[in-house]
């Protein structure tokens, strides 16, 4: 079981139209250039934005159904969300931030120690580094024992070194929790490294795998540039607009 | 070329308007020199308005009046306020001015009476003013400021002498002038008001009822021409007019003797 979603939403420049599932214990990456609608999708999963149509359900529990008029508020979905610039509450210390939605004090202590920020527990968010804030935000999200974890470009604001460290940590995290994790990123390497399934997206739609394959073949060198995407995709107009979901077999593409 | 002409026209307009404004302000201050400015105690508003109109018609001299409590006016005059005449509600303050050589010899221009007035019909049938004031149904009694309004001073005096001052202390409300005391009573914000007899005789006053206060002395109201008047001739003429028979008729109509 896991998260099952099929939603549409009209945005200023295009329409988001996606369908996919993410099972317990799996990591799903939504990859694409900025503005592709990825953030909108996870915000809709979180209940922070309302889709125009479709359904969202988790383990059979319906969170959103446009026909039946069901819309469960974010409070009741019991998920974790790490925002793009890991918004922590500035008026609370690290400890209190993590404890915000925690079930018990022991849980907070355990998480802080696990992510190696225990020594920062009394500091405020402006007194710690970006990577430390990121870890704090993840702890805050996990403290709630969420049923799903949503990460919105969690590492984009970090320097290269920290980013590499955080990726490793996230990989380790997977071993600790067996909940669906949906990871939004524009970095294809990161997606390939961390995820079981990768969904490339352009203009609100999931694009067929063969387009991604083409793009990967054409890439030269390391690093990721949004232009690569745009370059790759503009060469092929009229990509499939149906909401078929093709998942990629990562092994074939790992270098 | 067009722009230059427009801006020239603008400059002409603005400067001519400016000149006219400056000119007219000189004019009006020239006028002000001839206008009599009279400081009048609040209780005397209504008769004073009539008297001023009569005087203006008779002599062609413009008169402007300021109305507020005697004490306030006294304070202003002592500080040099530019009044020509002072019509007080007591004898004390004009007397003080005369002592300080700030005025001519004062003269009595009216004799007023203090009454207890109410707009509420249910308070009207009692035997005397003391019974009404002390009654349970009365929650607020308006008394003009006892320090600066002579009618208020007298009201406090009679209340103290009747032994009612402490008894009714919680009920008192203190507007600044005796005219406001009447206003509070007539809007029923206060149940009773210690007012001037002339208020009781006014149009609004006749909608309610009043009690005479025999214990209260008649209020001798004195007036004087002020020493620093810029208009002595007109001021003295107004002072004479105040005591004339026609003025007396007006005063009597408002309950003054």
């Amino acid at each position, binding site marked *: 079981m896991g998260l099952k979603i099929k939603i549409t939403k009209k945005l200023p420049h295009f329409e988001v139209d996606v369908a996919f599932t993410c099972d317990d214990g799996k990591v799903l990456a939504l990859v694409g250039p900025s503005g592709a609608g990825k953030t909108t999708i996870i915000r809709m999963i979180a209940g922070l934005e309302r889709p125009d149509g479709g359904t969202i359900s988790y383990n059979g529990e319906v969170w959103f159904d446009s026909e039946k008029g069901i819309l469960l508020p974010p*409070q009741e979905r019991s998920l974790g969300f790490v925002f793009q610039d890991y918004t922590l509450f500035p*008026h609370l210390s690290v400890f209190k931030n993590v404890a915000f*939605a925690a079930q018990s004090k022991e849980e907070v202590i355990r998480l802080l120690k696990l992510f190696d920020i225990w020594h920062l527990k009394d500091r405020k968010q402006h007194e710690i580094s970006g990577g430390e804030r990121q870890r704090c935000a993840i702890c805050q999200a996990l403290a709630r024992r969420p049923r799903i974890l949503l990460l919105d470009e969690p590492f984009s604001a970090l320097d290269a070194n920290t980013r590499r460290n955080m990726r490793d940590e996230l990989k380790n995290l997977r071993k600790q929790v067996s909940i669906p994790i949906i990871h939004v990123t524009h970095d294809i390497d990161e997606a390939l490294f961390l995820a079981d399934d990768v969904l490339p997206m352009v203009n609100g739609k999931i694009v067929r795998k063969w387009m991604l394959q083409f793009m990967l073949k054409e890439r030269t060198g390391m690093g990721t540039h949004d232009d690569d995407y745009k370059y790759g995709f503009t060469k092929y107009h009229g990509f499939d607009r149906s909401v078929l979901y093709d998942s990629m077999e990562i092994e074939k593409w790992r270098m | 070329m067009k722009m230059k002409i427009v801006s020239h026209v603008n400059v002409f307009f603005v400067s001519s308007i400016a000149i006219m404004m400056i000119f007219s302000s000189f004019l009006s201050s020239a006028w002000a020199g001839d206008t009599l400015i009279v400081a009048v105690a609040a209780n005397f508003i209504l008769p004073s308005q009539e008297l001023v109109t009569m005087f203006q018609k008779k002599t062609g001299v413009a008169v402007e009046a300021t109305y507020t409590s005697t004490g306030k006016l006294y304070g202003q005059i002592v500080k040099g306020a530019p009044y020509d005449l002072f019509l007080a509600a007591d004898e004390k303050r004009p007397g003080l001015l005369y002592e300080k050589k700030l005025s001519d010899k004062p003269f009595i221009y009216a004799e007023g009476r203090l009454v207890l007035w109410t707009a509420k019909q249910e308070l009207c049938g009692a035997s005397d003013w003391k019974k009404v004031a002390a009654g349970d149904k009365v929650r607020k009694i308006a008394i003009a400021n006892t320090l600066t309004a002579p009618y208020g001073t007298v009201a406090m005096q009679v209340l103290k002498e009747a032994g009612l001052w402490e008894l009714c202390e919680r009920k008192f409300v*203190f507007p600044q002038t005796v005219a406001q005391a009447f206003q509070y009573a007539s809007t029923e914000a206060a149940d009773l008001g210690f007012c001037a007899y002339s208020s009781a005789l006014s149009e609004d006053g006749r909608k309610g009822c009043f009690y005479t206060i025999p214990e209260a002395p008649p209020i001798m109201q004195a007036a004087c021409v002020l020493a620093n008047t810029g208009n002595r001739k007109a001021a003295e003429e107004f002072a004479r007019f105040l005591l004339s028979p026609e003025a007396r008729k007006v005063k009597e109509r408002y309950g003054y003797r």
Partner: protein
Amino acid sequence: MDLMPLYLSIKLAIVSTIILIVLSAPLAYLLVYFRFRGKSFLEALLNLPMVLPPTVLGFYLLVVMGPKGALGRLWEAITASPLVFTFAGIVFASIVYSFPFAIQPMKTAFEKIDRRLLESSYVLGLSPLATFFKVIVPNALGGVAASAILVFVHTMGEFGVILMVGGSIPGETRVASIAIYEAVEALNYREAGIMCLILVPISYVFLLIINRLTRSNLYGS
């Protein structure tokens, strides 16, 4: 030397400040986070006391709070005593008079809060009401402090409205500003001067207290 007017002024200022802060916080919340029809009319209405001359405001309040006015009658029905010429009456008048000064700084402070903090709070399971108290208010304390200070100072100095609606009753509505005025009118300059001299440091001390109370809670925002 009668200190009662000073005591009354301080009491009025404190009571008005507390009531106004409690009243304007939810209103500021409504104005910042919701869009509804007639919102601009409501905002203009709330700002009206700021542009009306105090005597005009006092006049209308006197009519409305008087025994024949809608509010006066309502109050009387509930408490069997009049609203005008009472301490409760001048508190009410102060609240109306100072409303714009309370709500504006709070609105500004609320607007400055990152919406994602609120979203984070919702996702973490807090209701909008709990979010208001646990996230919005602590992060808007600067605005709350500014509101409190403005209202306190404004109320201490209030004169025209209180004069019209209060009736200058010693021990109940004769606040310091009125007592000073009446002392001057009665040419009692010495008493007036003493009251002024006491009023200034008292106001200053209160400002320091409000400032200190909220500064200790301000974060590196």
